[in-house]
């Protein structure tokens, strides 16, 4: 654990699976499942920002909760700084938690309205065991300052702050243990554009200052492109494409990535552009398909896609895609 030599990835997720059981539909039917994660594998290197993009129901929040060891994992492995966390009890995990912290989406829901800012920010220190009051106050003051809040804010309550400031408090809380990894689940999607930019810049600055690694989850491709070095695109509980941000955004190799990028409206680009469109209906999270998970909506679906599952294979340097016809997709771009 203490051996944090630089080649060990900060986060290493291997073949992570998580299925939720649904209540029975009838007395005699088998209970259904929500297939939230179907074998997810990726690594994040120290000091990098890793973006996870996908639409609602693709399993990205489940992934965050599993990486944070906040719920039971069905199978697979999550290693943080080389240390396996799957299978550890809550008590065994406690001392490790200082190394990985989380920022949540809702700046109103993620702060306890009955606690002062000082108490909220100091909360993760609980895992460190006994710590003197003076030391605690010093660290609270330090992180508050580094996120752009004032030291005297410690006695205030969350309702006295605006949404953007609240998200700063949440960031301060995640930073107080000087973690290696911060999992940020849609940290700016509840904010207005002008405030969102402030928070994004803050996250960038803090990465430089603290050398922290981000696992950044968002549905907003532009935000991910702005912040992240590497991106994974998720669809129905699987990573369908992964690569360095500049490669993946300029030369997508999976039709879903392509469509996602095309669907983002761009200001100043005039009336609707030509683009690839989705067909068919959304596949539910409770259904499973033989073959490619994207087959129901893919505009270029073939018989092969319905019978054989495409593996996540190399399509370029550090660029993986799970499509039988990724070369055709790349060529079209």
């Amino acid at each position, binding site marked *: 654990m203490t051996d944090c030599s630089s080649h060990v990835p900060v986060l290493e997720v291997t073949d992570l699976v998580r299925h939720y059981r649904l*209540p*029975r*539909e*009838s*007395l005699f039917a088998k209970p259904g499942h929500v297939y939230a994660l179907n074998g997810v594998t990726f690594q994040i290197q120290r000091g990098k920002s890793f973006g996870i993009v996908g639409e609602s129901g693709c399993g990205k929040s489940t992934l965050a909760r599993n990486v944070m060891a906040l719920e039971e994992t069905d199978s697979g492995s999550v290693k943080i700084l080389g240390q396996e966390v799957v299978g550890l009890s809550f008590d065994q995990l406690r001392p490790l938690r200082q190394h990985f912290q989380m920022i949540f989406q809702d700046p109103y829901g993620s702060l306890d309205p009955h606690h002062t800012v000082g108490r909220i920010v100091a909360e993760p220190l609980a895992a460190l065991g006994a710590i003197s009051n003076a030391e605690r106050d010093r660290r609270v003051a330090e992180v508050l300052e580094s996120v752009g809040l004032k030291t005297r804010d410690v006695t205030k309550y969350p309702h006295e702050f605006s949404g953007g400031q609240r998200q700063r408090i949440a960031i301060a809380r995640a930073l107080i243990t000087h973690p290696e990894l911060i999992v940020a689940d849609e940290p700016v999607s509840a904010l207005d554009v002008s405030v969102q930019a402030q928070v994004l810049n803050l996250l960038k600055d803090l990465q430089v200052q603290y050398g922290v690694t981000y696992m950044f989850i968002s549905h907003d491709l532009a935000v991910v492109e702005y912040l992240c070095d590497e991106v994974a695109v998720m669809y129905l509980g699987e990573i369908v494409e992964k690569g360095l941000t500049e490669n993946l955004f300029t030369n997508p190799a999976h039709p879903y990535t392509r469509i996602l990028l095309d669907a983002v409206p761009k200001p100043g680009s005039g009336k609707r552009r030509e683009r690839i469109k989705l067909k068919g209906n959304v596949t539910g999270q409770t259904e499973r398909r033989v073959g490619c998970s994207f087959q129901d909506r893919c505009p270029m679906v073939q018989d092969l896609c319905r019978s054989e599952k495409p593996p996540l294979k190399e399509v370029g340097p550090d660029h993986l895609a799970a499509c039988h016809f990724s070369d055709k997709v790349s060529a079209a771009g």
Partner: protein
Amino acid sequence: MSVFFAKRFLTLIVTLIGASMVIFLVMEILPGDPALVILGVDAPESAVVSLTKELGLDRPAPERYWDWISGLMQGQMGNSYAYKVPVWELVEGAVLISLPLALMSIFLSVVLALVIGLYAAANHNKAGDITLMGISQLGISIPNFWLAILVIILFAIELRWLPAGGFPGWDEGILKCLKALLLPAVALATVVGAVLARITRSSVLEVFREDYVRTARAKGLSQRATLWRHVLRNAMIPVLTVTGIQFAALLTGTVVVENVFHIPGLGSLVLKAINNRDTIVVENVVLLLATMVITVNFIVDILYAVIDPRLKAHDI
């Protein structure tokens, strides 16, 4: 059969069994020797022993519980210790008074609640609303048996419009009987009606703030049409919950108010039985009342699913 219904029905059965066990436990096992309870502590030992045998109390508890339940299945409740007649004979007449009284009161209170609640909600924060809510606040504070005494003083003693108490019996004609039940029903319904009226009002106001009400208004529906077509059905969900809870209050209220009016219902029966140490009557009447409460809550659960299609889907 939908899983929803099956699940609720199973809950009903389990709750009934649980309730009967609790009653059996409290009435027959906790006191130690029921014979001693019946005869009093000073009774001679020989009398206690012979009564114990006579009542079959020397047999093991599970066996006695099973006898009780299987008897109930066949409509038999055993014999009253005090009157030496089948308990069912005593209970039958009492139920035929208490049940109509309870139904009459719940009907009155729901009607009262809907009229007042809807009027108040429609005139939100206007004089009518504030006055009605003030009155209902008073209504929920008045003990029902005191209200019963007050209506007797007013309608029976001062105005002499209605009988002060007693019950003529169903042979004497339905009208006469309903007249005798009217005052008790009013006394019971006022309090429950006040509670329900407040719930109705706040629930209607809450639903009026929903997005789909705005959608309905955007379609061109008037305020009134929106109320009837979109608000009411949704607003009934919490009202239904509270009606279910209030039914228990109403039923126990019946026990008390029957005593004010000297009506020979379940309430009078059970109090007499307590004075006579007739535990077998108490046991059966309490189970009967508990069954009514449980059944009403079961009906409320089923009604939920009728009103709200989401519930069925959610719970299937």
